[in-house]
């Protein structure tokens, strides 16, 4: 089985962000990391690699400096990397990014693509489904459990009330949520081996993507303004004075908020 795991380089969520004049995060201004959600998609791929002898390739769309992110992903024990680097991609929205990823996937053979359900920077959750739509393959998103048997993939698709069991024929695209597994730490052996794993860097032209399909200028979504999230408001504190009044107060609060 061949698996591709698309990953993203994201700003460290704990770091201070610099927003440039183009209203995008200046990715070279702060510390960047492998998107933490990708640790879960990589872990799932590594588990399939261990149990089913899958070959796993990591795919990254990003600037040249993101190569360290590809190596980081490879250090978990993946087999090789494909990096799409092209200045024209800068500022792409979710749809533009999906177009590039779809073309990159078309350039390779694969049975299963495992995305994280969202990236910790944009958090649109759109890309996996958009890629599946562009490629005309099944899309199984928000997986909290994943199994592959023969040419069938089964996931538990998480939603507010629990989960649905959804299955599809391979090839298929899956996105996973953080509840799916407990990611491992890369071993030193893996870290050292990552240096010598094959990594192909390709341009838009190599993939047959026209520059007018991607980039800030061709984005379907336009950012007009932004502002920091308002600070968290203080919650309601119910003090227990031993009289039992607190329980009633708590019950009223739950009814008021429609929890009960």
């Amino acid at each position, binding site marked *: 089985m061949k698996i591709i795991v698309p990953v993203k380089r994201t700003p460290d969520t704990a770091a201070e962000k610099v927003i440039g004049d183009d209203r995008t995060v200046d990715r070279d201004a702060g510390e960047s990391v492998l998107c933490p959600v990708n640790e879960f998609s990589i872990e799932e791929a590594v588990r399939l690699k261990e149990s089913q002898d899958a070959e796993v390739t990591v795919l990254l769309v990003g600037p040249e400096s993101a190569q*360290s992110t590809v190596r*980081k992903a490879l250090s978990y024990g993946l087999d090789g990397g494909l990096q799409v680097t092209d200045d024209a991609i800068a500022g792409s929205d979710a749809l533009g990014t999906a177009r590039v990823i779809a073309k990159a996937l078309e350039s390779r053979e694969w049975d299963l693509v495992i995305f994280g359900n969202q990236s910790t920077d944009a958090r649109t959750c759109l890309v996996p489904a958009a890629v599946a739509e562009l490629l005309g393959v099944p899309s199984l998103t928000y997986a909290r459990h994943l199994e592959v048997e023969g040419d069938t993939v089964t996931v538990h698709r998480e939603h507010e009330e629990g989960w649905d069991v959804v299955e599809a024929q391979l090839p298929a695209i899956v996105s996973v949520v953080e509840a799916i597994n407990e990611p*491992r*730490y*890369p*071993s*030193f*052996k893996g*870290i*050292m081996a990552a240096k010598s794993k094959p990594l192909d860097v390709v341009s838009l032209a190599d993939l047959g993507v026209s520059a007018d399909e991607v980039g800030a200028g061709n984005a379907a979504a336009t950012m007009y303004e932004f502002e920091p999230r308002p600070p968290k408001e203080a919650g309601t504190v119910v003090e227990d004075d031993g009289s039992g009044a607190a329980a009633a107060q708590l019950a009223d609060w739950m009814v008021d908020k429609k929890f009960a």
Partner: protein
Amino acid sequence: MRTTPFTTEHDALRASIRRFVEDELAPHAREWEEDGWIADWVWPRMGELGLLGLSVPEEYGGQGGDYWSTVVLAEELTRCGSGSLPMAIGVQTDMATPPILQFGTEQQKQDYLVPAMQGTKIASIGISEPDAGSDVRAIRTRARPDGDGWVLNGSKTYITNGVRADFVTMVVRTADADPGDPWGGISLFLIETDLPGFEVAAKLDKVGMRASDTALLHLEDVPVPGDALLGTVHEGFKQIMWQLQGERLIGAIGGVAGAWRTWESALAYTREREAFGRPISGFQVTRHTLVDLATEIEAAQALVYEACDAWNRGEYDVERVAMCKLVAAQLAFKVADTSMQLHGGYGYSREFDVERNWRDSRLARIGGGADEVQREIISKLMGL
């Protein structure tokens, strides 16, 4: 420009270990201190992560890394909030098992080194006795030949991991001291702790390093098979002198890294704590104290890294290693003591880690060869 000995791969390893230490070890440090026992799961978990054999060849379950990868582990473990844990792990990785890799047979490597790297067997090093410490030639634990094997009698004390160990790399007398060969007659053995006559006589109570189990071991007519002999019979003294270099160096690395951790927390406290209307870091006396310590730690680190570089190339200089051990042990305690002073009453309170660190770091000046022993080694090698 990169001026450190560490590569980007070492940096990645460091990030990975730091996360493990912060997420999985540090939250338990206080509980282990109170229990007087590091949870047993730490060994197999670290084995699973490949952290118990970073510098061991891959064929024996190690990660095949260089010595700097071991340095990274020793440095990062100082972030766990317990002095006991780096010591217990250091015994496993850098004191009890290197002689197996260096002197052991293929079978011994498979039977002891591999499970030690996996964390499924816990290792101890058995040198000190009730009447002999750094004076290794004075040890009395005795092995007498018996058929194809040996029978052991004697005692070992201050044995780290000794209460829970699966095996002890033990220094034992195998022949009477010969005035013509004062270093002969001593041998190393790999002693399994479930042999009849092997007894953990006591779990010793200590000032510090309280989460680490320290044992007094008694051996009474313990039957030991012939293949438990590690290396060459009667050559154990030389072998253990080699082992002690690695033990002292890893201790020195931990000492310097621990001093940095202590210094960082002292700095943070002095910036927070106000007296007479300003943070105490605003007083010249505080700043100069911190600067002096930082300067000494930098200097000690440079000496230790130089010795690590030599060790990494397969060389070692006994005099330098003794200097590293001496300076790091003294400094770790000095910084801990100064930090207690800077913390005032809070430093003396059991509520914070300052006093734990003060108690833990005191051991370094005694264990693994006391300050005075290091000075004697240096003095001899200098021909004073």
